[in-house]
Structure formats: C-alpha cells, structure tokens
C-alpha cells in the first residue's frame, strides 16, 4: 500500500498548480466559485489558454496534439482544476468526439476535425438522448436514411448541453430497424448550419439555460460524415462509456464544495454563534467530510485498478453513485446553511449590492437544484445500480 504520489507525479501536480496560479483568469475563477453562468467567451478563453500549454486534450496521443496523459495525471489535473475553480473543459469535442475519431475515424476525418477542436474553430455538441430514450439509448428513434451520397436525418434529440454555443453536433442515429435495437445504430457528424435543423433552449428547474432540444427535418448529411461502419454506433457509444469515463466521482468538485461550505459555516451566525459551532450542523458537516475522505481513497483505488487493467471496471459505477450522493449532500447543506438567504431568485443585484447571502453563495440554492441532474444524466444512479447488479454481483 502506498497512498502517496510518485516524485514524478508530485512534480506534475506542482507544475499544474503553478500553471493554474499563473494562467487561470481570476474573473473566470470567481464566476465558477460563485456558481455563476460562464459565457461562451469565458469557456473559449480558458480552452485557448490550455491549448497553448498543450493541456487541452488530456487523453489524446501527442501526435494528434493531445497531452497523452495517463489516468493518474488526468486525475491530478482535474483535481487541481477543481480546487482552483477552473472552468470545466467542455467535454463533447475533447473527451467524447476526439477519442472516438482517434479510435474509429478515418484519417481524413481525424485530419479535418481534430485540429479544429483544439484551436476552437468548432464547438461540438452531443446528440444522444431523445425524448423517449434517456437512460435507454437502444430505443432511440431518430432515423438516418441513405439517399445517394447523403444520409437524410429526421427526428429529435434532447438534453444537448451547451448546444446553443455549438456549430457541430455528433449524433447517434438509427440506420436500421432490423435485429436487436442496439444493432441498427450509427454514429454521424452533422454541421448545425445544415438546413432543417432547429435548436430550441430548454429552461432548467433553476432558470438556467444549459441544455437544448434539437429537431431534424429532412437534414441531408454527406455520407462521409459517418464514423466507423454503418450500424457500428452502439460499439462506439459503449467504447466511450467504458474508456472515457473520467472523474465520474467528481471528488474534486466535492472537495472544493466542502471547503466553501466550511468557510460559509464559519461566516453564518445563529443564536449568536457561528453555525459551525452548532452541533447538529457540525455533525452533518463532519459526516460528509468522512464520506468524502473515504471517497477520495475509493476513487484512487479504482484509478489504480483502471491504470493496471487499461479501463475502469463495472465497479466504477460505485464512484458515480456515491460520488453524486456526496456532491448533492454538500449542495444540500450549503443551501440549508444559508437559511432564508438561500431563497431569493439569483440575480446580479442580489450578488452585488444587496448581499442577502454571503459572497459566493447567492446561487447555492440554484446550484442545489441544478445539481439534482448529476444523479440523472450520464446514466442515472438507478441505471448504474442495474449495471453493477449484472456485472459485479452477477444478480
């Protein structure tokens, strides 16, 4: 047993830390810390800074312009980014499409697409979920019918995150209705400027706009935009699911949230005392700290396992389940710590002059509601439990 990083890993962490200290724009970090919405420009700015350092595409091999990091390096980088309140890298081009093209794409596709992801020319979004197929991707209905050199796409995608900023979308589409439902699915690249596509915002529970619906009506897409073989889409989707799952425990987010919460509990006063001195509150806080400390190790254990085996096993579903439970508990406790001050609808005013809540906490209730999504999206915790039951428990 050795819970410490190697000297090389420690050196890497110090390098990342120094980089973040020097290069992360403080106005952007401030927004992240306070849970405010980032603009497209904010995200592009951070991507450009990372790209300049060669750290934008963590997992891509160096020959494609990636950092070529291993799992431990990625983990260190992600954790440090969280602690520094860096924006999350928009994953659709970098961590989803990129690896798919590197594994399944043609050389032409790689050459055409990858550099434009890195330099920010293209913003990709994801067309996986459909209104009738959330956790159950195999039942998707959006059709792509071959018509000469083109596919003609009809259907509807939903939960398309940050689609409002995107100019491209990669989709899972049904190219066959024969055999098992999984067998007739293909993976295809679509330019959002193509006629027949309409993107509509979905307003979320807390009022934010981060996801969208995308409607396809007779959208003609060149056949060479198909990635891999026709009807190979399920294989590609599964590849992403097993190989590219990273940071699913969200430990970095939780550590950062815990530190913010502890500081909040030292600012808030109840009954003439600091909230952190209230035993009931402190008990909840300590309980989460303990679960989080354990989670850090569970995360490292599975990381070590993945490092050894090349890919995370089904037990990594535990990370998703418990990781989201812990994050949500932290959001819950922050909201509660604020009392009535959590209740106002977030606005610039409330964060600025009015200061109903302590600085950086005006959006804690909104964050709590928004983060109810993390146990739903990306394979709900119920689905994760089903996966575990089958794979690990053999039930």
């Amino acid at each position, binding site marked *: 047993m050795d819970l410490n990083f190697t000297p090389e890993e420690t050196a890497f962490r110090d390098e990342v830390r120094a980089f973040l200290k020097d290069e992360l724009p403080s106005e952007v970090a401030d927004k992240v810390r306070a849970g405010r919405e980032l603009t497209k420009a904010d995200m592009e700015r951070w991507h450009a800074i990372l790209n300049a350092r060669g750290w934008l595409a963590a997992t891509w091999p160096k020959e494609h312009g990636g950092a070529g990091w291993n799992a431990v390096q990625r983990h260190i980088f992600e954790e440090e980014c969280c602690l520094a309140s860096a924006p999350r890298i928009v994953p659709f081009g970098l961590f989803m499409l990129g690896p798919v093209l590197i594994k399944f794409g043609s050389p032409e596709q790689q050459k055409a697409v990858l550099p434009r992801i890195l330099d920010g020319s293209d913003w990709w979004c994801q067309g996986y979920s459909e209104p009738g197929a959330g956790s159950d991707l195999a039942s998707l209905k959006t059709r792509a019918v071959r018509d000469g050199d083109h596919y003609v796409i009809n259907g509807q995608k939903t939960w398309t995150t940050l689609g409002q900023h995107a100019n491209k979308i990669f989709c899972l589409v049904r190219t066959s209705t024969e055999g098992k439902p999984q067998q007739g699915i293909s993976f295809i690249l679509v330019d959002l400027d193509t006629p027949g596509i309409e993107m509509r915002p979905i307003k979320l*529970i807390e009022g934010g706009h981060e996801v969208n619906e995308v409607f396809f009506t007779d959208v003609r897409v060149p056949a060479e935009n198909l990635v891999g073989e026709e009807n190979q889409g399920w294989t590609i989707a599964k590849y992403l699911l097993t190989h590219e799952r990273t940071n699913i425990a969200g430990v970095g987010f939780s550590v950062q949230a815990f530190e913010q919460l502890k500081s909040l509990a030292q600012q808030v006063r109840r009954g003439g005392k600091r909230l952190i001195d209230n035993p009931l509150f402190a008990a909840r806080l300590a309980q989460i700290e303990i679960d989080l400390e354990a989670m850090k190790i569970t995360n490292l254990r599975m990381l070590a396992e993945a490092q050894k085996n090349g890919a995370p096993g089904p037990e990594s579903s535990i990370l998703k389940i418990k990781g989201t439970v812990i994050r949500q508990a932290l959001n819950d406790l922050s909201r509660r710590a604020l009392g009535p001050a959590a209740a106002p609808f977030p606005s610039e005013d409330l964060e600025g002059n009015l200061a109903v809540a302590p600085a950086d906490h005006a959006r804690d209730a909104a964050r709590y509601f928004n983060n109810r999504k993390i146990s739903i999206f990306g394979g709900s915790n119920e689905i994760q439990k089903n996966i575990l039951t089958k794979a690990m428990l053999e039930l």
Partner: protein
Amino acid sequence: MHFELTDDRRMLADTLNRFLTDTYGIEHRNKVAYEAPFHDPAKWAELAELGPLFALVPEEQGGFGGAGFDIATVFEPLGRALCPEPVLPALMAARLLAAAGEDLEPLLSGATRYAVALGETDAPYALEDIATEAAPAGEGWELTGRKSVVYGGNAAGKFLVAARAGDVIGVYEVDAEDAAVTGYGMIDGGGAAEVFLEKTKARQVLADAGAALQDALDFGALALCAEAVGAMDVTYDMTLDYLKTRKQFGRAIGSFQALQHRMVEMKTEIEQARSITILAASRMGTEEQSRTVSMAKNLIGRAAKLVAEEAIQMHGGIAMTWEYPASHYAKRLVMIDHQLGDTDHHLEKVMAGLQVA
C-alpha cells in the same frame, strides 16, 4: 374520534380548490410567480373576496375561523396550487394585530397587504437573536436595522416589524413608503424584500410581543405544513402518473420494483406528514402548541425534501425542466424548509422539550 372536516371547512376547501384549479393553473401561476410583483394583484382581490382570510381569525376578531384546522383548510389548497399570493404574511399579521386588539378589517378584506418583518441576516429564525432597535421619538418610535428576506415585503403596504427596545422585543408598524424596501422574486416563486430601517418612523403595536410573536410564528409554521401537505400530494400523484405512463426498456418504469418500493416510502412519509399536521392543528391554543408545531415543521421539512428529490429522480430528467410542473413543486417543497425555521431549528426546540416531559 374522527378525521373528517366540518361541513363549513369542507365547503371552504372545495371553494378554494375550485377557484384555484379554474383560475390559477400552473401556467398562470408560473407567469405571475416569477415576475414582479411576484403574485397577481387581481387574483389577490378575487381570492380575498372568496373569504379565506376571514377563516384565519376567530369571530371575536371579525373572522369566522382561526382554529388550527381552519388554517390547515386554507393552506392545503394553496399548496396544491402552488399559489404565490401572500396569504401567509396576512395570517401572521392577523395574529399580531389581533393580539394587540387592533382593527382587522383592512387586512381581512384584502385591502391592505401586510408583511411581517422578523428575520435578519444573523437572526433568520430565532426571535432572541433580533438586533433591530426601536427607540422612542416624539409621540411615536423610530426603528433602525435591516430585516432580511421578508416574505411578501415586495408588495406590502404595511410592515409589522419585530424590534427590540432594550431587552424587550415589541412589534411596530411601519408604512412601506417610510422604509427603504428592495423587492425581489424567490427561487420557488413569490416575492420578498430587504427592508432597511434607519431611524424609520414607526407605531408601536405591541410593547412586549414575545408571546404574540411566538404565536404568529406557530400559526405561520402550521400554515406552511398544510401548504406542504397539499404540494406533496400533487407531486406524488404526478410522479405516480408518470411511473404508470413512461416506458423504458419496453415497460412502464412503474413496473420496476426498486421504484415501487421508493414510492411506498414517499407515500408513507406523506401520510406521516399529514398526521403530524393534523396533530399540530389540533393542539393550537393549547400548552403544547409550540412544541407540536416544531415537531410538525421538522417532519414536514424532511418529508418535503424526500418527496421533492425523489420526484425529480424518478421522473429522471423531465422534472429538471422549467416547463414540467413537478420542478416548481419540488422547488417549493424544498424551500419551505427555509421559512420560519428549518428542520434543525425545530428539532432543537423539540430536543429542549425532552427534558421537561
């Protein structure tokens, strides 16, 4: 022993439910609840005409109710409709004015909207911690301090403010136009305000208001419990409906046993919440009023959070959207815990009572 409403109360509940169902549907509600003035003044007038405000106070004070079950009867329908009208501030103001023997007519008729300004930044729930000061000034009084997150304060004509003169906490009336009031909307709909008082002119309503304020808080908390029960019932039904109709992996998701058992747990907690609210309503006006209300508010806080979170999780995505009504029910259910004392605040009160009994 029986658990049926009197005919009068059932009629009132029916009337309210019908009015709200017919004229205050969720789309209308969402339109008015999130935009200034964060309620619907026209509907407020109609609502007042229906008479529910009169049900909040006893006959001696010009009403026709005022018992615990009257309060529950009014607020459960409001909860079912997620109604953002400021009935709660009216109830609490009525209790305070009645305690002072003042004329309630302007309030009960709906003509004057009151807000009750208790909480402060460092004193969100507990009366003892109130720091706003009242000082004599000529014939009247002057108040100095900041009242934070005053529900209904954004659209109130008058404020009843809790402030201390030395060790004694009293209640003072302030005209909205005399104070610096900044209104805003709430994350779960409805409005509130920050009220800044700086030697602000005030009229003393109650010199020593400890008991009256606790009573107003108790009645307010009971009302919130009943409101939550109404909102939980609707949320539960919505979820049950969804489980029956939504299909995944080729079958209704309600056929999955893990979800079924969680539905039973929701249902169980809702019934427990209904029971404790009934108990609290029955104990209003008795010595056990405050402690029982604290029990109710604690259980409601836990149950409402469970129902909200489980409803969202079992809907799986759709209830994360603004468009789907369950999201607004979930927000209200969670945020009720931030009003008039949260689960821990009330648990501490119940803990204190463990010793005596």
